[in-house]
């Protein structure tokens, strides 16, 4: 496996080969959650967050998903100040992108 370090302000959306992840930040957590809705593959990174901040609503069918459940399919992350580090497969390409997710952190 290989570790990758990114500046958090340069990446709110990350592509690892075919899989994509969006950045979700809270006071005590910073997650790279999968963008693909478990239901029909809708774009979770374009969805609303519930008022309590605990769930993301898919814009296609309005299903709400608990962030703690989505996190099980997230990338492992460490955020220290403005750096976020993650780990991907040795041969996988990790491409950070900006302005794709509705979340800017």
């Amino acid at each position: 496996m290989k570790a990758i370090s990114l500046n958090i302000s340069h990446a709110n959306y990350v592509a690892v080969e075919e899989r994509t992840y969006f950045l979700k930040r809270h006071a005590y957590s910073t997650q790279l959650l999968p963008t693909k809705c478990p239901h029909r593959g809708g774009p979770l990174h374009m969805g609303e967050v519930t008022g309590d901040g605990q769930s993301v609503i898919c814009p296609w069918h309005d299903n709400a998903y608990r962030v703690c459940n989505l996190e099980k399919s997230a990338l492992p992350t460490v955020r220290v100040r403005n750096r976020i580090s993650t780990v991907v497969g040795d041969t996988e390409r990790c491409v950070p992108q900006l302005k794709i997710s509705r979340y800017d952190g």
Partner: protein
Amino acid sequence: MLWTTQLSVNAVDFVLSSNAEALTHYCGAAAFAQPHDFYTQSPYQRPSRPQDVTDSIITTCLTSDQLSNSQHLLAQRLLLNIYEQDLVFLPKPPLELDLKAFKSFYDPVHTASGKKIRPLLEHYLYNWLKEEVHINGPWCLDSFIAHTDKVLDDVAHSESKLHEVLTTSRQPERAARFFMTQCAGDFLSEASAMARNVLGNSGVYTSELFKILIDEYGYGVDKKKHSTIFEDMLQDMGMSHHVHHYWQFYTPASLSLTNYFHYVSANHGELFRYIGAMYYTEATLALTTKHQSRAIKSIFNGTVSTDYFDEHAHIDVHHGRMALQRLIMPMIKQFGPQIIPDLIRGFEEFRLLQDIADEELYAHIQWHDELDQHRAQAAALQGQKPVDLRITETELELSVLHTHPNDELFWVESGELEFVASPDLTVRLKAGEGVVIPKGMLHGTRICSPSCTYTVTAI
């Protein structure tokens, strides 16, 4: 129902007032009292400006932008004292044992007050780390190793900023001694925090932790004990080797490093955090002590023994490997990935605290080097703003070293005083002289005329 609510409010008030009482009682100890000197002559003296204590250190928590706050330094001093009441300190010759001070330092009622406020101080001092360090997502042993290997590899391949700062200082020997002063608070009680985790029975891990500990303590041979090797080095450099002789000169971030290890060791629920922090420090010390040794050899032309750093450059290669292969890997295999967030948290938190302490050290060395410019700057700024505070003190009155959260203009109106910035840097300021003190920079004063009036102005 109303009665229950009333009781609950009263109970909260009682807890708050009882915490405040414990703080007041704790700060009233002789150990913290106003000293006559900038240097302590006993391990039981810990001058800490208790008059500056406010309830905020037990009722709030610091944020990462408040680390220059004077309350930060004060709380770190108090917390180290609380932790060190669990440890045994005796004076070394030629210092004599003051039995009354010894008994007083370990007074059980006083110690109990410290224990009561300890979690509150820990919350005040370290809660901000939760906001700065986030660990999320599914971690496994392989991703843990990939992440930590990269961090350590980056350290291994980076230039040593410490070496550069020390050797390019305007006064490299003074800079090196200030660096050693910051190390002294921790190294003279080498591995004491680590010892907290070798008691009890954690199976094979007790033995693995014990192996690292006995290296630190020299296998029962006093000359091999790491603290003894460090004492020899201090003496070679013309410095005092007595525990906490330089107590007032420890920066808050240096104290924070020592206290962090006690914090995650004294609270055994943080064992995995401790193991992660220990892995980071042992693995990086194997790398950084090489540069430290090189800097000391170069600055003192080989006249100072660098055995302490050389020993760590050697043994910490083993300790880093032992921490990973004998502790972390089998622990993850046995207890599962649930422990990995704590392991990474300790690793990353100590790394962050170390970075902050390094930057603070470099800032102090720069401030010492540029003190003359700060004196000239004071002369240029004097009179431009109304003063915030005017203080008159009498001869020999001493202000224990402290910091301010803002840049300050310090100006002597009458009389004369010694302005102390480091053990090797004292200047006399007379009437009509002053200095700009950058925020977060340690300084203290002692009046050396029958009376002296000075002003302080935030700029």
